[in-house]
């Protein structure tokens, strides 16, 4: 497989994974958490590069610490989750910048963690994404109902005898795995676009969560594909191109919703007029 | 200050504190409440009674000018829009952050901000008004306590103090008894009686007939539209209540209205 075809495949898989897990992020309103994670794992990547180990591994280990600290800070009454995400985002990223500044001769891989470099993904990276995607699909297929239940009605979920922490843990693992494996596509800074935009667009056009779980990965894959193709034809960096493709789909969904709204409003106005007329005739 | 302005007892031909004539309200294009026609005189209290979703909060918001009025008139002391500070509003407490770092007296001071204007700091007169408002609700001892550390009932009374701090002529209370224990209910009733003696007009939405009987001369029954308005004992008949609650199975005793399948109302 040529490097470009490999990049396309990676973009499609990463887009699909981000869309799928992004649905969980959007439904559970964890966008800031996901955003914090994308930035806070940067020192893990730098550390891995310094030690010469695999970058996703470094990022994954860093995320263990990060999620742990975030959870702890989030539980403190005077602080809360916004503060926790914000502090970890900025602390992690600053640490990464510091480490990078202290080691100016690091391989380019570190920069690509920040801005993405889909054109240089290895087949190992692609395999990793495929595995995580398969795992995510299995989780959604078998546990999707419980996840949705616990998301919309935490009290009812608990009352029905379930415990919440397994679902919470599972979604955290999925979000973290997605963030860590999706870096090569768009980089840490823009990853949130691929996680949030296709899912948000899916939310607008879907009427059920099942539809969302299907539409979001499709939109994500399309964003990845379109982004890479555009990046080649317009000669711009792939990361921002993918992010803008995803954002474009979101805008499109908004526009369609507006149009559908006006069409529906017009229909309802007609129906009301017809009803009034028929009532007048009766009276 | 609150006490001075209202020394005379209200006369029968006094200007109504609140006059609503043939009014209808809507949320955007959706009509929410129709055919409202009643008045509240200074020193009097009107109870707003109706099932959930009947429009009690809607009416209060309509009086505050927060939602669209599609027909009719609303006048506060003969004027519309109501001049700043004439109306005091006591919402329900469940929307507030229990960890917010603010004391009870600071919350009550918020009721004075409108009359202060943008950049001025509270004066001695403002501090005095806050102290008096806290006296009125019997919470002076807790003035420095963090608001979130007060009990639900105390928070409700604290919000009442905030509404009272600006010396309003008309007080709107949205289901003030919800979740209150007996001690706080009694305290609230005493406070409202004290305010009425000072000439404040009160409009209170409630499920609780004890409150209506203890404090209100008149009752307005609602169910998306006005069902009845008038002196309390004339309006609170079983027939009227059944019509308002839309069910022949509704029963009414001393304290509550019992809707079949919904328990006490």
């Amino acid at each position, binding site marked *: 497989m040529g490097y470009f075809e490999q990049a396309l495949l990676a973009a499609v898989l990463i887009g699909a994974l981000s869309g799928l897990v992004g649905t969980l*992020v*959007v439904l559970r*309103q964890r*966008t*800031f958490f996901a*955003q914090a994670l994308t930035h806070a794992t940067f020192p893990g990547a730098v550390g891995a590069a310094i030690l010469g180990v695999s970058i996703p591994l470094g990022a994954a280990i860093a995320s263990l610490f990060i999620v742990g600290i975030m*959870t702890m800070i*989030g*539980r*403190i*009454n*005077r*602080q809360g*989750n916004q*503060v926790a995400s*914000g*502090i970890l*985002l*900025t*602390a992690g*990223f*600053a640490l990464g*910048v*510091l480490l990078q*500044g*202290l080691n100016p001769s690091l391989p380019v891989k570190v920069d690509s963690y920040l801005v993405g470099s889909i054109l240089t993904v290895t087949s190992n990276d692609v395999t990793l994404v495929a595995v995580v995607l398969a795992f995510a699909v299995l989780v959604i297929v078998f546990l999707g109902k419980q996840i949705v239940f616990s998301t919309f009605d*935490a009290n009812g979920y*608990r009352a029905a005898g379930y415990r*919440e922490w397994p679902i*919470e843990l599972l979604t955290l693992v999925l979000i973290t795995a997605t963030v860590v494996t999706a870096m090569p596509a768009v980089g840490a*800074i823009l990853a*949130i*676009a691929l996680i*949030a*935009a296709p899912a*948000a667009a899916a939310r607008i056009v879907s009427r059920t969560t099942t539809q969302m779980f299907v539409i979001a990965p499709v939109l994500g894959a399309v964003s990845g594909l379109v982004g890479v193709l555009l990046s080649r034809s317009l000669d711009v*960096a792939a*990361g*921002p*191109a993918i*992010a*803008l493709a995803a*954002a474009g789909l*979101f805008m499109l969904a908004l526009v369609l919703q507006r149009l559908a709204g006006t069409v529906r409003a017009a229909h309802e106005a007609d129906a009301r007029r017809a009803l009034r007329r028929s009532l007048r005739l009766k009276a | 200050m609150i006490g001075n302005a209202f020394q005379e007892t209200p006369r029968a031909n006094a200007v109504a504190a609140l006059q609503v004539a043939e009014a209808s309200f809507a949320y955007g294009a959706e009509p929410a409440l129709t055919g409202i026609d009643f008045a509240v005189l200074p020193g009097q209290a009107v109870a707003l009674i109706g099932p959930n979703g009947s429009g009690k909060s809607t009416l209060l918001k309509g009086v505050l000018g*927060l939602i669209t009025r599609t027909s009719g008139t609303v006048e506060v002391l003969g004027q519309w829009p109501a001049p*700043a500070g004439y109306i005091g509003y006591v*919402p329900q407490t469940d*929307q507030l*952050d229990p960890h*917010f*770092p*603010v004391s009870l007296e*600071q*919350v009550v001071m*918020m009721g004075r*901000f*409108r009359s202060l204007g*943008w*950049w001025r700091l509270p004066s001695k007169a403002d501090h005095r008004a806050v102290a008096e408002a806290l006296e009125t609700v019997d919470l002076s001892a807790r003035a420095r306590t963090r608001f979130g550390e007060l009990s639900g009932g105390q928070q409700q009374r604290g*919000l009442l103090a905030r509404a009272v701090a600006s010396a309003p002529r008309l007080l709107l209370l949205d289901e003030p008894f919800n979740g209150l224990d007996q001690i706080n209910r009694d305290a609230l009733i005493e406070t409202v009686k004290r305010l009425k003696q000072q000439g404040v007009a009160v409009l209170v939405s409630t499920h609780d007939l004890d409150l209506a009987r203890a404090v209100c001369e008149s009752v307005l029954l609602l169910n998306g539209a006005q069902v009845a308005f008038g002196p309390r004992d004339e309006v609170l008949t079983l027939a009227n209540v059944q019509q308002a609650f839309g069910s022949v199975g509704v029963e009414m005793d001393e304290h509550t209205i019992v809707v079949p399948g919904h328990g006490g109302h």
Partner: protein
Amino acid sequence: MDVFTPLITAFDLPFMARALLVLVVLSLVAGLVGVLVNLRGLEFISDGLTHAVFPGVAIGFVWGGRDGLFVGAMAAALIAAVVLTVIVKRAVTSDAAIAVVFTAMFSVGIIVVSRETNYVGQLDALLFGRLLTVSPAEVNQTVIVCLIALIMVGFTLKEQVFRAFDREGTVAAGYRPLALDIVLNVAIALVVVAASSAVGNLLVLAVLIVPGAVARLVTNRLWLLFPVAAGFAIVAAWVGLALGYEASVNGGVDLPSGATVVLVLVAGYGMALVARLALDRIGGHHRTRRAVGQLAEPVVH
């Protein structure tokens, strides 16, 4: 190694003194605006604004060099502040919508910079700041922008606190929360512009959220929050700059100054956190933590 002398002698040098002045002014504003960010839970919006300002910085820089930077940043900041305020007011998935809008804007910025290959090296400075190379003109710009933000927020301070505490109450009292929100978001955007040139676009968030968070840990008294936040920020800036200087001059280690200041801020936060937890444990406060059930909750504005 003498710990305390560098805290004074480092700032004999004019460029260090300028850097300190910029950070002190930023700290004062961060003390005010940052506390409001904390009380309103606007950390995410602030992050959005920092990302949204970047294309203005990039486009301004490409068109007008270091002078155009400032103008571009201001334009982008003000537009973004208004757009984000409106989105929050209207959108159902407002947090996702914010993320989409600001990453789209950031992407535009990256594309603009990457097209101009001569400026790729400058991307670093835009993203990570040039604290030690601020010119006197830039100091003036920063001071003026910060003063404007200070006045906007200072003028509406008690109403902002009221709105932070009880949005419905402010509506009932006759205020318009949308107007207050726009004022605050514009002030935040101005701080973002001012702080971007100091600590860099990617580290601005620290200036906005860490001082406020520390103040909340230190005290529960409303009006103390502001001076505590500002004071903490000033001390952290001072220590961070001196530390960077000392490490570079006597230790031979070249610490990026923006990141160093941020890490000192975060270290200070860590100390305050530990102290608060210890104090509460000693005082027997079992109400510090909330129940285990859900580990994270949706955002409430």
